[in-house]
C-alpha cells in the first residue's frame, strides 16, 4: 500500500473529524489535539484508527505520552510521524 502525502493528510483529518464529531473543514495540521475535544479515551481511539488506516505501529505510550517517540501536540505532528513511518517502510504489515 502506498499513500501520497496529500492522502495521508486528508485521511488523518477525516479520522480526527469523525472522532471529535467536527466538520473536517474546521480542522487543519495546525489544530492542537488538546484544543479539539480529544479526551484520554479518544486519543487512544485515534492511535488505533490511524494504525488501522495506514497499517503502521505508532510509538504511543499512554503511561507517558509526553516522553514517547510520538509527538501528539497537533494534527500536523501526527501527520509527520505517519509519513516518516511509511517512508521507512514500516507499513509493510
Amino acid at each position, binding site marked *: 500500500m502506498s499513500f501520497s502525502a496529500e492522502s495521508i493528510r486528508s485521511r488523518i483529518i477525516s479520522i480526527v473529524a*469523525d*472522532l471529535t*464529531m467536527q466538520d473536517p473543514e474546521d480542522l487543519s495540521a495546525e489544530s492542537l489535539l488538546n484544543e479539539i475535544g480529544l479526551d484520554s*479515551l*479518544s486519543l*487512544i*481511539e485515534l*492511535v*488505533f484508527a490511524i*494504525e*488501522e488506516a495506514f497499517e503502521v505501529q505508532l510509538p504511543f505510550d499512554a503511561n507517558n505520552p509526553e516522553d514517547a517517540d510520538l509527538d501528539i501536540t497537533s494534527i500536523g505532528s501526527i501527520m509527520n510521524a505517519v509519513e516518516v513511518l511509511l517512508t521507512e517502510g514500516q507499513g509493510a*504489515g
Partner: protein
Amino acid sequence: MRRVAITGQGTVNPLGRSVPETVSAMAEGKCAIGALDFPNVERLSIRIGGQVRGFDPAEHFDRQGQVLHDRFTQMALIAAEEAMSRAGVEIGDAMSERTGVVLGTACGGLQTLDENYCLLYEKRKNRIHPFVVPRSMNNSAASQISMAHNMQGPTYCVATACASSNHAMGQAFQMIRSGQTDLMVTGGAESMLCFGGIKAWEGLRVMSPDGCRPFCASRNGMVQGEGAAIFVFEEFEHARSRNAEILAEVVGFAMSSDASDVVLPDERGAARAISGAIRDAGIAAEEVGYINAHGTGTRANDRTECAAVRKVFGAHANGLMMSSTKSMHGHLIGGTGAVEMLACIAAVRDGMIAPTVGYRKPDPECDLDVVPNDARQHRVGVALSNAFAFGGLNAVLAIRGA
C-alpha cells in the same frame, strides 16, 4: 432498622422497551421467544431465544456511547434512565456520596469478547479495538450508570451466574437498611445471545430447541433471553419526605449455597434461602401470596424448586401462586432476577399475577398453582423472587405492596 422503598423501575427486555410495555405483555401472556438472529446461527443446534429485536444503539447513544458500551451496558443505561426519571430524583452533590449502584451480570460484555476473539483467532488480525477492556468488563454497566447519574458512593457488580441480579438487589437493600447509603440503583443486565455465547450453553445440554415450558410435563430445557431491568431503591423516609410514589417495599433477603453440585440444584439450599427471606422480612409464611419462580424449564430445577416451596410453606404451598415469567422473556441469566422483579412489583402493586405460558400438561412433581397460560387479577400481600444459580448459589428477595 431502616426501611427500603422501590421508587423507580426501568427495563429493556424481549417483552418490551419500557416497564409499561413489559407489564402489559406479561398481562397478555405474550411469548417473546423466537428464532435467533445473529451471524453463524446456522451452526447452532439451539436457534431460539428471547432477543430484543430491532434494537438500534444509534437511537440512544452518540458515537462514543456506541463505541464504548457493549450491548448489555447500553440496555442497562437505557433502563436506568427510565428508572431514574420514574423515581423523579436528581442526585445533587449533597446526596451523591450516599448513593451508589450495584448491578448483577454473569458475563458482562461477552459479545465484545466474542467479536474480538473472532477477529484475532479466525480473521488473524493482530490489532483489536482499544476499548475491548472497558466494554467487556463486568462492572462497565455499573460504572457507566454511576457516571450518568452522579452517584459517587459504593458502586460495583455481582457475578453469581443466574442469581446475580437477586444478589445485587439484596446487597442494595442491605446497604440502605444498614445506613450505609440512602439511595441505590440496582438490578441487572445480560446480553450473551451471540454465536460463542449460545455455543457455550449448548454444551451443557440444558437448552430447549423448541420452547421454555416451566413446570409443564413436556418441558425440555431452558431458553436464553437478554436485556436489563433497573430499580431505584431508596430509604423509606427519604422517599416519603419528597412525596415520591412508592411502588413497593423491599422487606427481606436471604442467600445460601448448596455446597454440593455445580449444576444440579439441591432443594435444601433453595429452601434455606426461601425461609431465610421470610424470616428476614419478619413475616408469617402465610402472607406470601405470589412467588416469581426461578422456573427455568429444566427437569431438575422445576422439580427441585417445587419441592423446596412445599418444604418451606407446608399446607400454604396450595394457597399461593407461583409462576415463571421465563416462559415469556427467556432466561436472562445474570439479568433475570431483575426482569422478574418487574412481575413481583406488578403483583403486589396492581394485583397482576403474570402467567407461566406455554403450559400444556401437568407434572405431578410440579403440582403447585403455576398460573398456567393466563394472567390473573388477585391481590397479594407479599411476593418472593427466587433465583438459584449454577454453582449452587441461591438468593431470594421478599417485597410488599406500599
